[in-house]
């Protein structure tokens, strides 16, 4: 466990310089700070609140200079103190490390550093000089010794990292403040460019993402989270005409050997993101899809009124514009195998087949073959695929009961209304508070007239001659939260009641559809909970050269998590094909260190900020929209986008580590 020799964090000083190393107390917070990567000890850590020194021979001046260099490079240049002050501090530190300075310079540096800290406009400048100030304030004699000592100073190994809470929360690590900045700057094309660095499905993500970033947004402490998602949709929609041109003219910097073919299985978000990044890296990529349409759950699960198909298809077509090929109606396990792919010359395979098999409720009389019984995902697939895409009519009864409390359930009930089902019931075993579905989705469903039954669960499905007639339900009561914080539920005796219905739609989860692989023959193994087993940092399955990502690895998750794994998969495949192994990725490591220090940070915004409320997204009227599949949320205007972008407080922080190598 790393031992802090000295340091300071938010002006709390640690000073063990007089102690012998073995006498220094170990702090559990630093359990992860021993090594940066195997065999490479972390000697010092710097952040926006302070610094920790883990080894005696660290040169503070050089560490401060390297940190400041990054700050000065990151300064957006809009406000005076940070733009100019950080440059002046940087040049004074340069003088000191070169041996051309005097100890008095520390006073001047401190006064400018204090000024940058107190008067900068955004988080970057406000935190940029904190560590330096603490160094001068509490460890001045060490600095003076360094100034007096041997110079010029040898540059130490330093890794810097810049991030913000929203970026850290985003599975794909989209540089949110940067794309918002570009909107402020009036450059929508660049803004979209930042998003496209991560994945091609910007307009899609701007519509359906579950917004990890907004949950982490610091602006919530002032008024409301920045409309990160709506801004993403804005730039993607605003620039939609240029997207295609961009990629058709995109010259892949260096093409890889045409032998290094990669196969991607599945065209869901994970597969598409992987193919995209592999193509950008210059690999020839073929994508195999079991269905006749691309997009995975984004196409067949997420309904048209939330994500119009042409929006999704346009973004998927980027793959083909860049030279990737998609082969439809090719199901792995039926039409081809892992082995076959390898013998056809593919050097690596990325499996992204999602979770498509619905889970049963386990109620008496339940049988997937009953007329009127459909898994949520299959029900949505039929609507999206057969009814909307192909125009095949669907006959539905008057009443429907959907079981579940997640977004899939919400999509089912709202779609059912649009299909003309008169009475749509939603049954969920816990209360509204526990619903995993997006609060906005629940509200929208309520507005459209869905009848909710909370704390209710089906016990029996009543059918006659293979056709569903009714469902028997029981009331549930909530117990105390267990260790994981989730509250248990128990049926209330004697509270059973019967609801007549033509349909029962279980929407309580999905699992990987087996049969695409023969574990023994293909060497790809599963976890005990039924997902594909991979190594965490490489996404490689138990079979060499076969990687996997997305829902089929994580279990049913979200679009952006799938895309993040797609990108990671592409990076790992690139490493595998180039070096034969997956390399250490410093950014991920920095991200983990940043997460480690978060508990030490008082996240409050302690100076009042003027309130500016979040843009209201206009919606189609509930009475109109519940009858059609037209997109519910309307785009925001350019003016609204500018205003919303101004709300971002740019919570960038700079971090650095000094390491042995």
């Amino acid at each position, binding site marked *: 466990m790393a031992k802090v020799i000295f340091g300071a964090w938010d002006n709390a000083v640690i000073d063990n310089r007089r102690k012998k190393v073995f006498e220094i107390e170990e702090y559990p917070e630093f359990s992860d700070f021993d090594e940066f990567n195997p065999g490479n000890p972390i000697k010092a850590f710097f952040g926006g609140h302070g610094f920790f020194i883990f080894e005696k021979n660290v040169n503070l001046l050089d560490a401060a200079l390297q940190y400041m260099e990054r700050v000065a490079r990151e300064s957006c240049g809009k406000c005076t103190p940070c733009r100019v002050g950080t440059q002046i501090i940087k040049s004074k530190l340069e003088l000191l490390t070169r041996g051309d300075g005097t100890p008095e310079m520390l006073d001047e540096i401190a006064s400018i550093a204090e000024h940058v800290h107190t008067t900068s*406009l955004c988080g970057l400048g406000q935190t940029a000089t904190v560590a330096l100030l603490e160094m001068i304030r509490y460890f001045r004699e060490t600095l003076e010794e360094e100034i007096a000592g041997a110079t010029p100073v040898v540059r130490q190994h330093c890794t810097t990292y810049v991030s913000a809470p929203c970026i850290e929360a985003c599975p794909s690590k989209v540089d949110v403040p940067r794309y918002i900045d570009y909107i402020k*700057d009036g450059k929508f094309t660049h803004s979209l460019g930042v998003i496209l660095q991560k994945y091609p499905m910007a307009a899609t993500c701007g519509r359906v993402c579950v917004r990890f970033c907004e949950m982490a947004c610091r602006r919530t402490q002032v008024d409301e989270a920045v409309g990160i998602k709506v801004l993403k949709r804005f730039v993607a929609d605003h620039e939609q005409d240029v997207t295609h041109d961009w990629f058709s003219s995109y010259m892949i910097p260096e093409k890889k050997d045409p032998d290094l073919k990669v196969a991607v299985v599945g065209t869901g978000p994970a597969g598409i993101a992987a193919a995209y990044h592999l193509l950008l890296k210059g690999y020839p990529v073929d994508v195999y899809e079991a269905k006749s349409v691309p997009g995975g759950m984004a196409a067949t699960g997420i309904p048209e009124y939330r994500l119009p198909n042409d929006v999704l298809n346009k973004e998927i077509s980027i793959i083909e514009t860049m030279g990737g090929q998609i082969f439809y109606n090719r199901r792995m396990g039926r039409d081809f195998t892992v082995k076959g792919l390898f013998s056809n010359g593919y050097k690596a395979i990325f499996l992204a087949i999602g979770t498509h098999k619905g889970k049963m409720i386990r109620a008496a009389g339940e049988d997937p073959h009953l007329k009127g019984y459909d898994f949520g995902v299959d029900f949505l697939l039929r609507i999206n695929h057969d009814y909307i895409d192909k125009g095949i009519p669907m006959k539905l009864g008057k009443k429907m009961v959907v079981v579940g409390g997640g977004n899939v359930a919400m999509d089912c009930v709202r779609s059912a209304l649009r299909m003309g089902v008169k009475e749509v019931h939603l049954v969920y075993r816990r209360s509204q508070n526990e619903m995993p579905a997006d609060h906005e989705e629940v509200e929208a469903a309520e507005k459209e007239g869905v009848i909710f039954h909370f704390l209710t669960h089906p016990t029996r499905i009543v059918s006659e001659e293979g056709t569903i007639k009714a469902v028997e339900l029981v009331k549930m009561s909530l117990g105390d939260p267990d260790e994981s914080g989730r509250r248990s539920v128990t049926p209330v005796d004697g509270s059973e009641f019967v609801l007549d219905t033509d349909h029962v739609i279980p929407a309580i989860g999905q699992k990987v559809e087996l049969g695409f692989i023969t574990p023994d023959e293909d060497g790809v193994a599963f976890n005990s909970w039924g997902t594909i087993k991979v190594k965490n940092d490489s996404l490689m399955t138990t079979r060499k050269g076969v990687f996997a990502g997305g829902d089929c690895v994580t279990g049913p998750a979200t679009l952006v998590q799938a895309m993040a794994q797609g990108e990671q998969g592409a990076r790992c495949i690139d490493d595998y094909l180039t070096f034969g192994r997956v390399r250490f990725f410093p950014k991920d490591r920095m991200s983990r260190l940043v997460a480690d220090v978060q508990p030490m940070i008082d996240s409050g915004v302690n100076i009042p900020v003027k309130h500016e409320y979040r843009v209201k997204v206009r919606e189609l009227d509930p009475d109109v929209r519940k009858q059609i599949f037209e997109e519910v949320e309307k785009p925001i205007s350019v003016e609204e986008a500018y205003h919303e972008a101004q709300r971002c407080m740019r919570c960038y922080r700079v971090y650095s580590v000094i390491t042995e190598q």
Partner: protein
Amino acid sequence: MIGSINGKKVEFQDNETILSVAKRTGHFIPTLCEMADINHAPGTCRVCLVDMKRKNDPAHHIVTSCTTPMEAGMAVLTRTPKVREMQRLQVELLLADHNQDCASCIRHGNCELQDVAQFVGLQQTRYHYPHFYLQRSRDTSSPSVVRDMSKCIRCFRCVNVCREIQGVDALVVTEKGLSTQISVRDHLPLGSSDCVGCGQCILVCPVGALAEKDDIEEAMDYLYDPDMVTVFQFAPAIRIALGEEFNLPAGTNVEGKIITALKKLGADVVLDTNFTADLVIMEESSELLQRVKSSAPLPMFTSCCPAWISYMEKNYPEMKEHVSTTKSPQQCFGAIAKTYLAEKMEIDACRMRVISIMPCTAKKGEAKRDEFIKDERPEVDVVLTTREFARLLKREGLNPAELAPSAFDNHWMGDYSGAAVIFGTTGGVMEAAIRTVHKMVTDKELSQVEFTAVRGLENIREAAVDLGEGIGVVKLAVAHTLKAAGQLMARIKSGEASYHFVEVMACPGGCLGGGGQPRSKHAYQAAREERRQGLYAIDKEAPVRQSHNNPLIRKLYTDYLEKPLGHKSHRLLHTGYTDRKRLVRHTMKEIWQEIEERT
């Protein structure tokens, strides 16, 4: 809610900023980037620091007053030693990044940065790093606006005005750190960009970073060349604004003093653009009636404002057939002066130089349009803005405030109607046209000369006038600011609104708020109301109030042009427009490269 500033009790609304409360209650706080009139507080200069203590927190915090809301029980101190010292350091840092050659700067003596440096008591500047500012660009490609980013303090007021007031959105922010600057969209030189040359950005720039293209030297060349005959024209909005540059109250009519000053400068012929404004009304009104009667495209848009013409050509070229073909008063003046006037006064047109004084920077670009240059001879040779004219007078030691007025004395072009004067305000062209159209159609003057339905300051106004049998009700609309013009255009194109006649002026308030008018510090269009009243007052007092009743206009038609839209009119007074829509093709590679350079 109640709090205190410098120990005095102050009342305020929830979410009101400290700066706003301080201003309201008479506590001065120095500012640079903020501009309340355009709702602008980007918080970038960081000069407006104050000491703030919250109700239940003993700590004092230094905060910027423009972005921090006042809270109940908050105690603010604006002048503590710490605050003064930090403000001083802030300005010192600002100057380290500023090309501070005041003596040759256009804003010398009238600069908000100089003011602030004085206010904070700056006595030394310790940091001199020329490479901090020399890497930024100077753009002289536009005939209207010069941008010197080495003097920019990143207040972003120009971006705000171009984006939020004009809706042109020509300016973007590029680079980062010290090289951060306001640039022109797609890396274009300003002269070939979306910029329409309206100069509104100049009016808000606190320093010398933005200015009109200076054409004083060329004007002086002609004035001091004995072989040249200089013919001056000045626009309606000059006479009620020039006085501000010489400490006269805004709105004061200095027409007579301008005539005297020009004569003293050595001008050979001093005339008024008002004369050709009357002429424009004759042509444009006839054109409107012709369009209404025939099946020509409607609505017809006015064409006097070159920034509007440029905006239309760049954004709505498909509507160019809707714009009146009548040239602007400035160009009609040049065309008539170099033909009719030259003939009557027996001047060799080749030796004649027409110099106009305009409230407008876009007029400089207009004079340089190809279609207004015949055989390498422009109709208008030099365009000076109000500000340049004031500088010219100062350079020649003339102060109009001290001069006795004189009157126009030209027998051919030296008269104007009240209708021409109100060209200087939004709604004025429309009102002048209605006065004349009514007479043309009904053979009767309007019962009430003033057609007030089109007056006002809302950005889009609508009215209707009944022209009786044959024509019926004519629907009118007036828009000022290009953002309003764009909104109106969208409504017209979608069929949501339909009109016969639409007036568009690019600048807020019309020409009186033009980009070449005197600047006001910390305020946008501060003298608008006085200037407007000034113009309406001149109209009210004018002996002749309709263009068609200007005796010299009648004489011009009888002696020379014959009739509106006649053969000669067509040759001299009408023009056409060009599709100037810009197609941008970015490649992802370029965009990513730029993003990476910034990462």
